[in-house]
């Protein structure tokens, strides 16, 4: 039987890969992919803890996280698309109209 730790370590690594993507990627769409990865890492963690604890709450939370992730994707894509329509690029460095 695999211990809970294995799942936790896996989730943390996935979460951190998401962070790596956030830091490394310079493309807005890829940025949103990374946040998606992070949310899924947490989902995995919730489900594994729920299953090891024998408590259903974790799965309920995971369910809502999927809903949150879905709506975030919708808005994110809409915003990128809008930006693409205005500037014909989705490069992160094209966000330069606001200056201090």
């Amino acid at each position, binding site marked *: 039987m695999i211990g809970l730790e294995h799942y936790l370590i896996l989730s943390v690594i996935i979460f951190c890969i998401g962070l*790596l993507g956030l830091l490394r990627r310079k493309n807005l769409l890829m940025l949103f992919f990374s946040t998606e990865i992070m949310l899924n890492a947490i989902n995995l963690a919730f489900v594994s803890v729920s299953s090891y604890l024998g408590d259903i709450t974790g799965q309920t939370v995971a369910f809502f996280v999927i809903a949150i992730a879905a709506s975030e994707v919708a808005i994110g894509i809409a915003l990128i698309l809008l930006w693409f329509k205005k500037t014909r690029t989705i490069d992160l460095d094209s966000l330069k109209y606001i200056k201090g």
Partner: protein
Amino acid sequence: MYEIIAFYLFSSIILALFYIVVTTKQPVFAITALASGLIFIGGLFFLLDAEFLGVIQIAVYSGGIMALYAFGFMFFDASKDIEERTSANKLPFVLFVLVCVILNFLLISPKIALPKPIVEIDTNITNAHQLGLELFSKYLLAFELAAILLLVAMIGGIMLLSSKMDKSWTTTPDDEIKADS
């Protein structure tokens, strides 16, 4: 035994796929890797006896990722690399390793005495049944809120991409707007 093999197999695949997502220069690779990675996470859900969520994960993402595909192809020429100025420095990797190690250390090092469950998993009924009971009683309100959340996202998507956004009234002088309408 087969559980162990499945876990290690799935997890190594997932890590590899997600690593591809954040490093590849090929946009199509990234999208494909993301989609399959998410579906493999669904596989892990089955392994954890959360069948219902596993199904949802696969259904939502195989549906949802199709849309991502569409956008991906719209934005980039699939044959070309992403014109992305990835920073050449090693700082992201250093941060990645640091956060990963410390987070793991903090999460794993204390001996976790597993707490008593609040709503115990009942092995007599199916996972979907029990999750349904939970969602529609205790978490009814949250469920409704999730519905509102999706509604807001839908309205938002429609608004942001409607034709009214093509010409911005905010930057057009008022007389010109009057002349148009």
